[in-house]
């Protein structure tokens, strides 16, 4: 056997390997950039919008409580201090961001159910032109939008995870209540919701500060 021939083969192999690796590397960098660009665009905008919307709803919920108290008559300040059972927890649970986003989404769905209940009750208690009803409608509508944004954000952040179920988990609504109970219930729900929204805002702001979308590169 000729040794020169053996070395030539090895060199050819090395050249081909080098070429192949270079190509792979270039493809990997390109794909990474594309992914990064797409991730940034998809992540940044929904997050920003979700953050702003949560901020808006949280602000409007503060005004909503004021309006609610003003429309409930005397002793309305005491209504919110009463403890009521089966009100969704305003705190967000989970260790990972994905879990926490899921927690936000599910809690939001729960609160929407109670919110609807309060709206129905106040529809009976207030006049049709009451500003409370208008504000309740607005907050409810925005909350639905917030849920859509949360879902969109989750999908953009965690595309591989299962989509969020809009139906959420089963929630227990209180039994029929008297007027006083309805007033107390409504105040407690709105106050808790306000706290929840504040938690959501803070969570999303944390996500934004962490620049989650960029670090995932």
């Amino acid at each position, binding site marked *: 056997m000729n040794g020169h021939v053996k070395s030539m083969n090895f060199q050819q192999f090395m050249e081909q390997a080098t070429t192949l690796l270079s190509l792979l590397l270039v493809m990997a960098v390109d794909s990474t950039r594309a992914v990064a660009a797409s991730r940034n665009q998809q992540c940044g905008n929904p997050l920003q919008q979700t953050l702003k*919307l949560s901020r*808006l709803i949280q602000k409007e919920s503060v005004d909503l409580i004021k309006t609610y108290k003003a429309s409930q008559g005397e002793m309305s300040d005491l209504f919110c201090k009463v403890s009521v059972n089966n009100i969704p927890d305003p705190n967000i649970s989970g260790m990972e961001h994905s879990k926490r986003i899921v927690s936000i989404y599910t809690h939001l769905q729960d609160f929407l159910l109670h919110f609807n209940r309060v709206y129905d009750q106040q529809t009976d208690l207030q006049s049709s032109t009451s500003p409370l009803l208008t504000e309740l409608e*607005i907050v409810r509508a*925005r909350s639905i939008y917030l849920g859509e*944004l949360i879902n969109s954000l989750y999908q953009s952040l965690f595309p591989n995870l299962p989509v969020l179920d809009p139906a959420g988990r089963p929630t227990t609504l209180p039994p029929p209540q008297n007027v006083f109970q309805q007033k107390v219930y409504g105040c407690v729900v709105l106050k808790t919701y306000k706290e929840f929204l504040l938690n959501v805002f803070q969570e999303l702001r944390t996500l934004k500060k962490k620049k989650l979308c960029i670090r995932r590169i």
Partner: protein
Amino acid sequence: MVCARVLQLLALACLGSALPARVDVPGKPENLSCEAVQQKQYISTTFSCEWQTVGSQTATVPTSYTLYTAVLPGSGQPYSVTTQKNRTQVKLGDTFPHYMTLEVWVEAHNKLGKIESEHLKEDSGWFVKTDPPSDVKVFSEKSFPTSLLINWTHLIPTIRLKLTYRIRYRQNGTQNWTPVPLGDTASDIKSFRLQDLQPYQVYEIQVSCKNAKEGHGYWSDWSTIVTKRTPEARPTSKPDLWRVIAEGDGKNERRVQFICKDPVLANGRIVSFDIKIQDPKDKVKNGSLEWKNIPRSSQGKITDLKQIDLADQKSVRVYINATNSVGKSDEASLFILAKARESELAPVEELKVFPHRGQLWLEWKPPNSTKLVSEYVVEWVGGAQIDWQKEKRNTTHTAIKGHLDKFVCYNVSVYPIYSGWIGKPARKEAYLEQGAPLEAPIVRLHKAGRNQATLNWTEISQGSRRGFITNYTIFYTSGTEVHNITVPANTASYTLTSLSGNTKYDTWVKASTIGGSKISFNHSFTTLRYAPGEMEFIVVGVSLGFLFIVVMTMLLCVYKKDVIKENFWPQIPDPGESTIGNWSPDYPLKADTPRENGLSGISVLDMDVCDGKCVFEEDKASLSLKKGKYLSEEHSSGIGGSSCMSSPRQSVSDSDEGGDMADTTASTVQYSSVVPAPPSGYKGQTPNSQPQQALFSRSESTQPLLDCEENPDVLQQEGSRQSQRSPPRPPRFTDGADPAGIAEQQELLEPLDFCPLGEDSEQATPVDGQAADWLPAAAPLSSYMPQLGGYRPQ
């Protein structure tokens, strides 16, 4: 495959042919635009869109448009509404989907198909149009006279929609807005401070807003205008000082009135002026001159400061400053030279003043002087108005910036200022706009003649002229043709010539400017029948002629009175007063030299006879009719009318001077003569040496001798007939002074019947001059024989 395709095409062709002509699938809607407006503190859920349709609607196949609006992300159905117009509105749920994405499109559909427009997918804030900011307020601060603070509010909370603003402002009364740079009005502000403004000026301010996100939203309308005046500040420019010079009361004195206007940058309301007048030769009083405070005029923009009487040989310096509520301005100064030295400061050259595009423009050339001009003052005086403006040193043309009235004559002057010293002005008169005069000249007749007339007209007053008079046109007519004559503007009278005499003329004058003309009232006059002096000439001529005639007649009478007398009042001697005198037939008559004693003259009266041959030649030799005067102391009567001689008389026959005796006596008949007395009593008589012949006594009648007496032999036969025919006549002349002489004359007088025509012609009273005109008529042969050759002494 091919057959199927062919069948499809055939089916489409049939379907297409079955449908009415000109029907197609709907056109794709284009230029879709939508907006969501503000509603109180929210954005309205009513979403308005419009688009452009392609193709037209047809009644048979109408096209419908459906607007779709989807809120993203969202799983719900898009909101939609259908219309056949190109605009519609759709309601987006219970609240405007802030921070959500909206996807909007329009679908056009008809029976033939449908087509969608381009999808418009943007953040919901992209479509928002807010209301303008409300409650805009502007604040001024005394400590910042060049700044104004603007505050405003907006109903939409920032949490809902973050807004950006824009601001614009302008000075009150101006048209152009000044925008504040967008970079200066950062997002989400509610106030802004305007700077670099003019103190004590009113500003108008407006604010507008939109979605703060770049490229999103529509600008709102401008807010309502808010006005505010900036605070006062100290004047930052000098007052405008000037003067008006007039003749003073005293001789060699000028009355100077100092006037001024507010500083351009008054920065407030000028309250008063401080003025200081300094005579350069006066010493400073106590180290500082006195300032006098003068309140600003409450009316108008010009303040009268002070009036002084300045001697022509003196100069003066004036200083002033203006004061407002904050402080005083810098000093302005003006220096007036002594009158004699004014020429040292040369005026501008080639000054032109002309109207152009509604303004009065000036052009000039710098003065030809070694001294440096610091600025120019353009002054204009019209009627009661005076104003001025200052121009920079390098200005050579400018327009008057003040208000000028039309039809007013302005006296425009340009003064060069040499470091405060006023130079000599250049002046021109000008009108901003000329028009027809308000008044017409008054035309009057100055002097009229027969063929000419001089007209005068008054000059139109300055206030009514309304322009420079370019010419006068004089019109005149006698009723048939109108004549006109154009004369220069500097004339005030004109003489019309070639007029008809004794004719009435109407005349009028037209005064013209470049802006029009004015015609005077008619003035009528009548030319004279006669030229001036003509009547006088005629009268004088006639009078002189008459006078001449009278004088001549008088002279004639005076110098030819004898002839006249003889002709008109022939002397007929009174036979009763004739006396017998000695008469010698051959006694030559001698011309006696007149005596010196002043004796009464005795002349021989020659009587004309009708017969032209009354002078016989034989009588010529014998008789010599002496001309001249015969002076005799003795009264001779009957000789040539001596009976009537109370005064010396001359011989009438002057024409016979030196003439033939026959001629002399051809026209006269001597019928008597005076026998001279003895030499001692006569003068001028040449003593005759010849012995006197026999003297015959004869009656000294002036009657011519009869033939019978003359030629008794020949005429004896005829004498009887004559005597029968001619009765003796009474004497014509009577002389009361000497009745004896008259008697003698009467004796000698024979009936004057020498004219065969009878006595009528003899007795007719002769008129003046007739005596000389008497011609001897042909006398018939009668016993009456005229004496020829003179007087034959008997």
